[in-house]
């Protein structure tokens, strides 16, 4: 079974600074997807970024980028120029590419606070 581990329950960062959230996962599959979701206090879960395991290039979405290390099964999220609106719970998630098993497996989350 796949597992996702986020080892940082809480983190804080000053506005405009950079912060990196860690995520490791365990799977025997070779092809899969990895995601970072953001859940602000208003609770709507928002997809931040997506990485396909067969792509070596790290995904980037504006201020959000990932460091995907397939051999190490590591998938960290870097937030540059942090903004107050980035305050939220961040969940790392794994999804198999095999049909019939497309549930998302989530980590426990990291609570990020951006301080003014």
């Amino acid at each position, binding site marked *: 079974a796949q597992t996702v581990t986020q080892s940082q329950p809480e983190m804080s960062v000053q506005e405009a600074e950079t912060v990196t959230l860690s995520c490791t996962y365990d799977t025997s599959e070779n092809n899969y*997807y990895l*995601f970072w*979701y953001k859940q602000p206090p*208003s*609770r*709507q*879960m*928002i*997809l931040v970024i*997506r990485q396909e395991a067969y792509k070596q290039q790290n995904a980037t979405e504006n201020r959000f980028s990932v460091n995907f290390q397939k051999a190490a099964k590591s998938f960290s999220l870097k937030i540059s120029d942090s903004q107050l609106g980035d305050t939220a719970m961040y*969940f790392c998630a794994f*999804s198999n*590419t095999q*049909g*019939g*098993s*497309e*549930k*998302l*497996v*989530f*980590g*426990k*989350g990291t609570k990020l606070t951006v301080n003014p």
Partner: protein
Amino acid sequence: EAGVTQSPTHLIKTRGQQATLRCSPISGHTSVYWYQQALGLGLQFLLWYDEGEERNRGNFPPRFSGRQFPNYSSELNVNALELEDSALYLCASSPGTWKNEQYFGPGTRLTVT
């Protein structure tokens, strides 16, 4: 484009009762997923529906059930409610199996007293 919608926002039930939660996916999405977000337990996969069929089920008892309608909206039913069923229930939809991207609704907060 309208996002995933869920109703009701809040639901209060007593132990032993039944709860029905509803979800409307993004237009064009055929897959609907249900997750339970309970305090201290994180997000747990409940059910996945695609094209009206149940495709996968998480490790939950049979009193958690659901269905998907021809318009791809979905219903989650929880029978014989227990106190530990109190949680935020999130629905997500997906445009198709190959992308694996899931877009979430705002959730239904179920409280069992």
